[in-house]
């Protein structure tokens, strides 16, 4: 009896209890409380917001049916009215071209910068400087960069590519340098111990170990750039399918053409995805079976 008593007195020092005396299995820190309050406040604010909307002229039934009709026209009856199939392919080609150019040039520049940004390949102060600059560039959205470059280059494909390039570099430097930092430090040590210099280690130790990661990050960025290039066609006059989309929707109010262009973009996105996975599996398998 006496022993159990002592055990109890020792243990209670470590046990946290809730107000009604039950043993708490959460660590009971402030984070739980903060999350609870945040969710509560957001719920209250969301409900309140509905009471402050401007409901004048809202005809809910009509709005829903007309939206449904518009969507049906857009996606079930797509046609081309203002330009030909050949023209459509040409415009898609321009958009893809914008994406490819920004991704390839960005990828090459990012590769060299990421060697500087990776902590295991570079000096601490260089790595920190590159990281800070790159984080700043990444914090500003691509569209803003395009508009900033438009001041110098004028609205058009040049400004679009420069802006997309800028943001692509920043994005890829972060992704690449983190891939490099994942390389087994033992590999670097072993190569350093053979008398290899920095370039030998990078080209024959780091790059072969991370090549598939670099490739998949570049393809991911290409997909993003393709999407951005569509938007840039409309927003920055960069041309391509995005500009046709802008004209069809905002200028001609041609829902059928908007539908057609949306399908075209969707198909291109799927094709790019399939090509990228095929390429990766074929040439750079993560494991070989023979």
């Amino acid at each position: 009896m006496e022993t159990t008593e002592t055990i109890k007195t020792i243990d209670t020092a470590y046990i946290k209890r809730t107000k009604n005396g039950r043993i708490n299995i959460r660590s009971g820190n402030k984070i739980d409380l903060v999350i609870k309050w945040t969710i509560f406040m957001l719920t209250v604010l969301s409900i309140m917001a509905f009471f402050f909307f401007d409901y004048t002229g809202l005809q809910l039934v009509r709005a829903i049916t007309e939206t449904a009709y518009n969507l049906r026209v857009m996606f079930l009856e797509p046609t081309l009215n203002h330009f030909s199939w050949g023209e459509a392919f040409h415009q898609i080609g321009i958009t893809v071209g914008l994406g490819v150019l920004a991704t390839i040039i960005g990828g090459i520049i990012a590769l060299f910068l990421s060697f500087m940004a990776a902590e295991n390949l570079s000096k601490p102060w260089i790595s920190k400087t590159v990281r800070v600059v790159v984080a700043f560039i990444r914090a500003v959205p691509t569209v803003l960069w395009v508009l900033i470059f438009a001041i110098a280059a004028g609205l058009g494909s040049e400004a679009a590519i420069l802006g997309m390039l800028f943001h692509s570099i920043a994005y890829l430097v972060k992704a690449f340098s983190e891939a490099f930092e994942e390389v087994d430090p033992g590999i670097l040590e072993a190569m350093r111990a053979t008398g290899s210099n920095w370039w030998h280690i990078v080209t024959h130790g780091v790059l072969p170990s991370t090549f598939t990661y670099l490739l998949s990050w570049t393809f991911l960025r290409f997909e993003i750039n393709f999407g951005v290039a569509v938007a840039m066609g409309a927003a920055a006059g960069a041309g391509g399918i995005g500009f046709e989309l802008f004209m069809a929707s905002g200028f001609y109010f041609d829902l059928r053409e908007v539908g057609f262009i949306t399908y075209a973009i969707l198909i291109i996105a799927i094709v790019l995805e399939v090509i990228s996975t095929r390429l990766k599996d074929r040439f750079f398998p993560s494991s070989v079976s023979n």
Partner: protein
Amino acid sequence: MTLLQVEGLGKSYESETQVLKNVNFEVKTGEFVSIIGPSGAGKSTLLRCINRMVEINEGRVLFNNLDVGTLKKKELRKLRTDIGMVFQHYNLVPRLTVIENVLHGRFGYKTTMQGILGRFTEEEKEHAFFLLQKLGIEDHAYKRCDQLSGGQQQRVGICRALIQDPKLILCDEPIASLDPNSSKVIMDHLKSITTEMGITCLVNLHQVEVAQDYSDRIIGLKQGEIVFDGMGRLLREEQINHIYGTELRELITV
């Protein structure tokens, strides 16, 4: 002839803990020396001070009459080509083939451009295959390293060290991740490197009995200090107890 001289070597990573304290020993050409001691005794640090993978704080390391601590970048690369290194976890590039990994050992002799482009002479490649054959893994030459077993990977690691044409090979617990059978193969190969090729070997080991079987000399390290230095058969049980701080029969020895 003395190949390696360590004089009053001291090393500390943070100012608090002294990893190595006043370490003195000499290694002659063609010797097979084992360093034993518990984890954290400073064995790995001692090895890495010799090819200056870690910087030396106090004392001197003389390799082939060169003061390792004072070498410039280029001279250090030259020194490292003379010292091969073998690791516990093999440290090969897993996505490259065996032959590519072996040829990494030649980078120390290459200019930057030759290295980047991977320009190796036919003699170097032939020598690589000769070494693979010697260690019995020539049939895996074109396989990727991540397809090999631990024992095979370690043999690739040894080939990479040998192709450097080194005077000394440092082995950092070469058999610590291997099964007893592969361990014997690896230790036999290391021993034959010393006896046949005359290359000096300095091996970190956990297994006292393996050290006694294979080495000409054993150095016992405890908390950064040498507590034993002599022939393996002179290592008495109470000295082993002193090195490891427990009774020998309480230790698991392979």
